[in-house]
């Protein structure tokens, strides 16, 4: 900064144009804070998750196989790149707690070193028969160390003392299965114990999973292929760390915030640049004579240039520092805990590299623009600068080419039209401001509507059953279920996960639903909304899953058959589902592959009241009404509502700062014209109209342009939200209307404020002072 007299001049100039410089500061702060804030969210999650994975010694892949033999175990251990192998038992178990809470049980061997819990309280002793319980589950059920918990294993209820409370790397994002949208610690959690405990229920130690740790950078694809060979037909599935539900969800969050940190701040950077441009151009124009005087006094070109550039740089530096504070504290620290991630540490990590990028961008938007605005005047000699500037020219605009139209409109409309077109930077600035406001608000509302709409599409359109009854497939079969003759429409389904091999050779474990060919309770539709029937020879795949796996209709994938090798099947159709991504196939096709259709569930639309006697049968594991599933989905909108409010506030601030500034600029630039009109007998309201109608013009254009921007933003948000959801972020009319009305209300409010401000300035005084 230039010290002394010029620096004092800088501070006084800024004080004079307070509103403008404060606006630039606010925009610069918002731009950096949003970028730094969103950035630090994923950075924090990534750092803390990785640290947690490392400290718990998380496996790189898990091989699910029923009762693995010693040969299996040693076979995997011999594979190149594998450093450590362990056996464990992993499955969901029922509890006797309210809400039919389920726990995922991990039973480890006593010498286990992989997938260890992160103890929060108590201990995880190697010899005892106790358990370590999910700490948030414990909190939701008011359980403490020293209490005990009952679980059902192999149809035997066993009671286990709680020795410790902990977190798990595999349950950072803790959802029961891919059908659950949000974690709910009151219904789902995990439990960790030792395999010796299983003896109570099974009479012996049993295992169903082999955890594998590999060398860093090992070729996982080839390891998976070798594992497949070693296990052979007994293989149920192989899950890579990155594909496990929790890790996948955490990575999804990281990707989402990376995308948001890129898209959202853009608008704010743009607006910062535009406001700086208009403010500095006006400041420098108005100081034309002063620049002449400074030059005449002997100040060098460089020091004058630096003087005016430093206005921008000062605001830019202050704005980015304030942005760092605001971003980290307001966006980062409030949003991270709302992501429902159970990380062992929430220590905040700031991505300084990206903060520097943001600061640099802001400095270009403020300092760079100021430099550019001043640069233009540098060529003139002091004598030229000290002379009065030529009067501004009037100009014709395109509308005048249509005389029939131009001749009819009122003079005031002509004035507004010409003036609007004359100052294009101002017009563009206000249009961008409103576009941003509309885009942000529309995106927020659309995302909300889309999320609320998941359950409508799923449970209003696709699934039409009243009750879903889960049955134990080992205790019943398709024929028996059919012979029950339940009073109502029923549909049998078999839900599980299946190991598949993609055309690329990659192994994946994906959900599969096998059901009857005539599907009265599940109505599948293709992405265009046309009904799709269950095919006889081939499978259906949901669009989103196809996209994730990189396969299309017509591609052939291989699916693992129980106790046998892989069979190629063709994807004959793509279906659209907002949630419940997976593979769907008919029971006849399933059986034609040599498999048995053994239902795990029954979808029922009762003819009258539900058959209670049936629901009490021993093979009925669980049942849920469609309403309860739907409300489960609808609940937990807290984070979304929070985000919607935050985004609407952001949009409002964008509109307010921009429109307020452009209006004041518009007014100040034309104060002499307007004063003349005042003298001629125009009332305040008429003068206000001349200035403020322009705002409605940019509001209308901004709404038109902002709608596709909002569409784009909601697409970015919804498509990165969750791999398990296929959301399009399509606009709906009510949201568009709410956005339009909200924006118009903002514009009206801003115009009221500006009108009040205009009234404070004595226009006649401005006119008189000229003489």
């Amino acid at each position: 900064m230039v010290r002394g007299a010029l620096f004092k001049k800088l501070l006084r100039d800024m004080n004079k144009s307070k509103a403008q410089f404060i606006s630039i500061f606010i925009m610069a702060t918002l731009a950096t804070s949003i970028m730094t804030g969103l950035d630090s969210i994923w950075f924090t999650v990534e750092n803390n998750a990785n640290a947690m994975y490392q400290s718990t010694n998380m496996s790189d892949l898990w091989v699910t196989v029923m009762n693995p033999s010693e040969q299996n175990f040693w076979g995997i251990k011999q594979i190149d790149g594998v450093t450590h192998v362990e056996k464990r038992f992993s499955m969901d178990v029922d509890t006797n707690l309210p809400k039919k809470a389920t726990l995922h049980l991990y039973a480890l061997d006593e010498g286990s070193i992989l997938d260890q819990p992160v103890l929060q309280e108590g201990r995880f002793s190697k010899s005892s028969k106790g358990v370590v319980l999910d700490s948030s589950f414990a909190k939701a059920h008011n359980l403490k160390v020293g209490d005990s918990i009952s679980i059902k294993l192999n149809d035997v209820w066993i009671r286990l003392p709680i020795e410790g409370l902990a977190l798990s790397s595999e349950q950072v994002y803790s959802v029961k299965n891919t059908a659950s949208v949000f974690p709910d610690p009151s219904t789902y959690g995990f439990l960790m114990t030792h395999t010796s405990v299983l003896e109570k229920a099974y009479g012996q130690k049993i295992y169903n999973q082999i955890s594998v740790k590999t060398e860093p950078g090992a070729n996982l694809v080839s390891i998976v292929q070798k594992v497949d060979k070693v296990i052979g037909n007994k293989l149920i599935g192989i899950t890579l760390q990155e594909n496990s539900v929790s890790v996948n969800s955490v990575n999804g969050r990281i990707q989402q915030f990376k995308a948001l940190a890129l898209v959202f701040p853009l608008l704010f950077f743009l607006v910062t640049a535009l406001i700086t441009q208009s403010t500095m151009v006006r400041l420098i124009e108005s100081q034309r004579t002063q620049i002449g005087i400074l030059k005449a006094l002997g100040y060098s070109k460089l020091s004058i240039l630096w003087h005016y550039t430093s206005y921008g740089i000062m605001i830019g530096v202050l704005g980015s520092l304030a942005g760092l504070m605001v971003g980290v504290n307001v966006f980062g620290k409030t949003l991270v805990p709302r992501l429902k991630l159970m990380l062992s540490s929430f220590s905040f990590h700031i991505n300084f590299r990206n903060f520097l990028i943001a600061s640099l961008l802001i400095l270009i938007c403020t300092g760079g623009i100021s430099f550019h605005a001043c640069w233009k005047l540098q060529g003139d000699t002091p004598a030229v600068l000290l002379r009065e500037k030529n009067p501004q020219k009037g100009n014709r605009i395109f509308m005048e080419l249509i005389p029939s139209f131009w001749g009819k409109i009122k003079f005031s409309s002509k004035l507004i039209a010409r003036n609007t077109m004359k100052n294009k930077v101002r017009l563009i600035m206000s249009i961008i401001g409103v576009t941003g406001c509309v885009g942000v608000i529309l995106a927020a509302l659309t995302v909300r509507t889309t999320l609320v709409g998941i359950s409508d599409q799923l449970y209003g359109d696709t699934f039409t059953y009243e009750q879903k009854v889960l049955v134990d497939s080992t205790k019943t079969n398709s024929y028996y279920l059919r012979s029950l003759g339940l009073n109502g429409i029923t549909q049998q389904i078999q839900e599980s996960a299946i190991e598949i091999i993609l055309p690329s050779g990659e192994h994946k474990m994906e959900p599969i639903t096998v059901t009857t060919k005539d599907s009265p309770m599940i109505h599948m539709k293709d992405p265009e909304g046309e009904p799709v029937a269950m095919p006889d020879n081939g499978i259906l795949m949901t669009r989103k899953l196809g996209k994730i796996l990189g396969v299309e209709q017509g591609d052939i994938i291989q699916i693992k058959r129980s106790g046998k090798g892989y069979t190629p099947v063709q994807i004959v159709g793509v279906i659209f589902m907002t949630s419940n991504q997976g593979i769907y196939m008919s029971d006849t096709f399933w059986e034609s592959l040599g498999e048995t259709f053994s239902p795990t569930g029954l979808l029922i639309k009762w003819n009258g009241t539900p058959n209670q006697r049936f629901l009490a049968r021993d093979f009925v594991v669980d049942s849920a009404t469609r309403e309860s599933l739907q409300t489960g989905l609808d609940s937990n909108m807290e984070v979304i509502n929070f985000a919607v409010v935050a985004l609407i506030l952001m949009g409002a601030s964008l509109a307010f700062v921009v429109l307020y500034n452009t209006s004041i600029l518009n007014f100040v630039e034309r104060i002499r014209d307007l004063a003349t009109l005042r003298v001629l007998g125009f009332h305040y309201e008429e003068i206000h109209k001349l200035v403020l109608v322009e705002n409605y013009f940019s509001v209308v254009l901004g709404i038109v342009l902002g709608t596709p921007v909002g569409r784009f933003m909601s697409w970015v948000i919804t498509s990165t939200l969750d791999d398990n959801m296929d959301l399009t972020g399509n606009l709906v009319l009510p949201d568009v209307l709410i956005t339009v009305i909200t924006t118009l209300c903002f514009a009206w409010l801003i115009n009221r404020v500006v009108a009040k401000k205009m009234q404070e300035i004595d226009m006649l005084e401005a006119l008189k002072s000229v003489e």
Partner: protein
Amino acid sequence: MEFITFENVEREYHIGDATIKAVNGISFQLKRGSFNVVLGQSGAGKTTVLNLLGGMDLPTAGRISVNGYEISSMSERQLTNYRRAQVGFVFQFYNLVPNLTALENVQLAEEICADPLDAREILERVGLEKRMHNFPSQLSGGEQQRVSIARALAKNPQIVLCDEPTGALDSETGRKVLRLIRDIGRDLGKTIIIVTHNAPIAEMAQTVLHMRDGKIAEMKFNEHPKDVEEILW
């Protein structure tokens, strides 16, 4: 009753701790349809008289009535309406709206007046029929002042206030502008008040108010006002 009456009018300004009486108790009366000049050096208080007459300022004491309106006791809104209906202004620096053509500048009046004159006719009357679609920046100073006169008259006001209308013009153009103001005023029966420091102009007026230090030093009635051509400056 006279058309314009000033009765012991005072106007004080406070600049810092100092109180300045820009107008210090003046009284005068002017007739309808008359051509008048307020003469004085800068600081004599003549612009304040014009501002008061034009409803742009209120007196701190005294009474002003114009055409039967008590403008000294009007509200802000009433003053605006008074300016709208009763007063036409011609400024030293024209003050045309740069974004409107000559014709459109005159049409301004049509939008706010109950009984405006036809903008084209009045522009023809001031001799600008060929220039009416030009923007102010394309017109010479004299032409701009003529547009400004046309704009003042198009409102069909009762009084026309001219603040140094020739101040920014060369003498030949200034003469033409003055003649135009006088002729149109006479033809349309308007009361004209010209404020100037240029003494010779006073010779063409029917009434001359000579101001000095906020007071009327002399009030002169010319039985036979001179023609513009006879004036030298």
